[in-house]
């Protein structure tokens, strides 16, 4: 009986086309993770879930920003965390003097300009994106050290009450923003000319250039989008903690990169979606929280995340070779 059913399953499996096979694997992994999470006592208790949702929202927004860079064929950015921290500081400073709306606007502009300038170097000159982003992050930390002398800026007392930090439908506001950004980012990728061009350019720069796609403009725009999303991350961070400093987003860079890789966004560019990044963020965060709740200490988190990233990288390459 077992033999019959397994051979039937095997036939069915072989009849599936490669993409749907992958879908089956993905759904199975997500279900397994969900089951693991639900089987963990105290996972669904409110404090743990709220903390989880808030933390993954910060990493998630940054991962959405990162996805624009990766899909466009520019691997990763190591400067988005620093950009988010700068945006957070700009937000707090402007908020204290000119109000909430100006604060958000200034933070978004700061993020877009910082990242957009890197996009100019990468899009116009085709400079190496990894080196440019590392240089940018070093420069941001250097200049910030000069400007802020390593100090923390605080939101003034009278404004704290009015900040967005409540709950909506039982979920923290950060998570709602993250969901919104995922949907928005996906819409930008799916329904705009920019999004379509980004996929073409990411999958083959020379070909895209040969058929006359606006490679420079699209690459710069991808970085501007990434900067805007990093700016939103900064606003969320500052609103949650009522303060901002350059240490804020120090570890989010690597978490975001891990999420993008685990989500299965091809590192060579040209494929992927915001939904996959969302799945990657969810998977990485769920595993981390389950580990924590099962009594693994905090230090195992990074190690196991690293192993998962390596495993996913290897698995995806295997699929591509087939």
């Amino acid at each position, binding site marked *: 009986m077992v033999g019959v059913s397994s051979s039937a399953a095997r036939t069915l499996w072989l009849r599936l086309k490669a993409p749907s096979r992958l879908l089956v694997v993905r759904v199975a992994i997500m279900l397994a993770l969900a089951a693991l999470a639900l089987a963990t006592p105290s996972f669904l208790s409110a404090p743990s879930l709220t903390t989880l949702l808030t933390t993954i929202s910060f990493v998630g927004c940054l991962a959405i920003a990162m996805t624009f860079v990766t899909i466009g064929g520019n691997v990763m950015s190591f400067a988005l965390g620093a950009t988010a921290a700068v945006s957070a500081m700009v937000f707090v400073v402007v908020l204290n003097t000119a109000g909430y709306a100006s604060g958000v606007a200034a933070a978004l502009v700061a993020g877009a300009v910082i990242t957009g300038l890197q996009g100019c170097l990468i899009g116009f*000159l085709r*400079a190496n994106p990894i*080196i440019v982003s*590392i240089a940018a992050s070093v420069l941001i930390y250097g200049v910030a050290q000069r400007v802020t002398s390593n100090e923390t800026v605080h939101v003034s007392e009278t404004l704290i009450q009015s900040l967005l930090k409540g709950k909506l439908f039982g979920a923290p506001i950060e998570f709602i923003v993250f969901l919104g950004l995922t949907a928005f980012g996906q819409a930008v990728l799916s329904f705009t000319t920019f999004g379509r061009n980004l996929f073409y350019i990411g999958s083959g720069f020379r070909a895209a250039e040969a058929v006359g796609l606006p490679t420079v403009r699209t690459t710069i725009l991808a970085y501007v989008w990434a900067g805007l999303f990093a700016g939103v991350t900064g606003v969320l961070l500052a609103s949650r903690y009522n303060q901002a400093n350059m240490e804020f987003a120090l570890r989010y860079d690597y978490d975001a990169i891990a999420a993008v890789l685990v989500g299965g966004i091809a590192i*060579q560019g040209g494929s992927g979606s915001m939904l996959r990044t969302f799945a990657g963020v969810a998977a990485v965060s769920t595993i981390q929280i389950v580990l924590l709740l099962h009594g693994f200490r905090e230090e195992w988190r990074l190690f196991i995340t*690293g192993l998962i990233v390596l495993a996913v990288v290897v698995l995806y*390459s295997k699929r591509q070779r087939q």
Partner: protein
Amino acid sequence: MSNHGHGGKPGPTALASDTSARERAGAIPVPMLARLLSPEFRPFLIFIVALGGLTLVDGGEGRILSSVTAFSTLQYFSTFGLVALGLGLTMVIGEFDLSVSGVFGLGGCVAVLYGNESIWLGIACALGVGIAFGMAQGFIVTRFGIGSVPVTLGGLLTANGLAYVVTQNRTVSFDNIDLALLLNESIATFFSIRSLVAIAFFVISIFVFFSTRIGRDLTATGSNRRAALVSGVGVGRIIVCSFAFSATMSALGGALLSFSLASASPAGLADVLVPAIIASILGGISLAGGMGNPLGLAAGVVTLSLLRSGLNALAAPPYANDVASALILFAVAIADAPYLLRRFTAATAWLHRN
């Protein structure tokens, strides 16, 4: 340039580049100057410029051309040199080892943890971890044909996590203070045991690179992998060995630094990736691979170290180093950018038209 001498019909572009080549040749009449500007010599030229610049800023107060600055330059050399040597050689073969900073920290933590029993056991453990880690990464890169950036990104996270795990997220201290002092004690004014170790590894690497076929094979693997494979270079072996070498050097560098600081923490040693990249690039190693050698790399590390110790000696504010590093990286990214010449030509043409 490679089109010349093919004997084919010269198209309009070939003609244009011909005239511009002649013009350029006219601008540089002396072969000596051409040799000075050649890629092999560039690292030394940059070093001379950096030394001259710092001396000028110093304004004759003797802060740069002093034995103290020379000693501290060599101390920086020993901190960054081994990592840069490993990373640089992976860049020569056209790969990129992002994991060096993770392995550097891991090596330091492992060395201190086991070094309290015996220093040799500590070093052996660090080297063992380095070799195993590097070989695993190299194996994944060759066996599965994946780019080295995602693999070593995973490696970086894993090594960093492993450092947190083995130290249980705390700073571990090294009890042998005498040894820590001995490692940094000055020998013959300029050197210390630590810097002599780094120099020794550079000398060995330079010797091996130039006098065995390994150097040629590395360059061939980096400049044209397919051609290298066809002409009988063991490309897979070269890649695995390069990653193993890179991780081993990083782990050793981390071990030596942690011994000399008499402590190690998983978070504290992470900041070597950026200096190592800068040193490699200053050392004449191209991001595209197939260029550079350990001799130029040594000059690159010396330049980077001189900038650090020089800025310290001139009492420059702490952010000056970050800003200088960032500007160097930007300059190299722009100078190495594949479309720089094209955009420049287009811009000059546009200016001529208007």
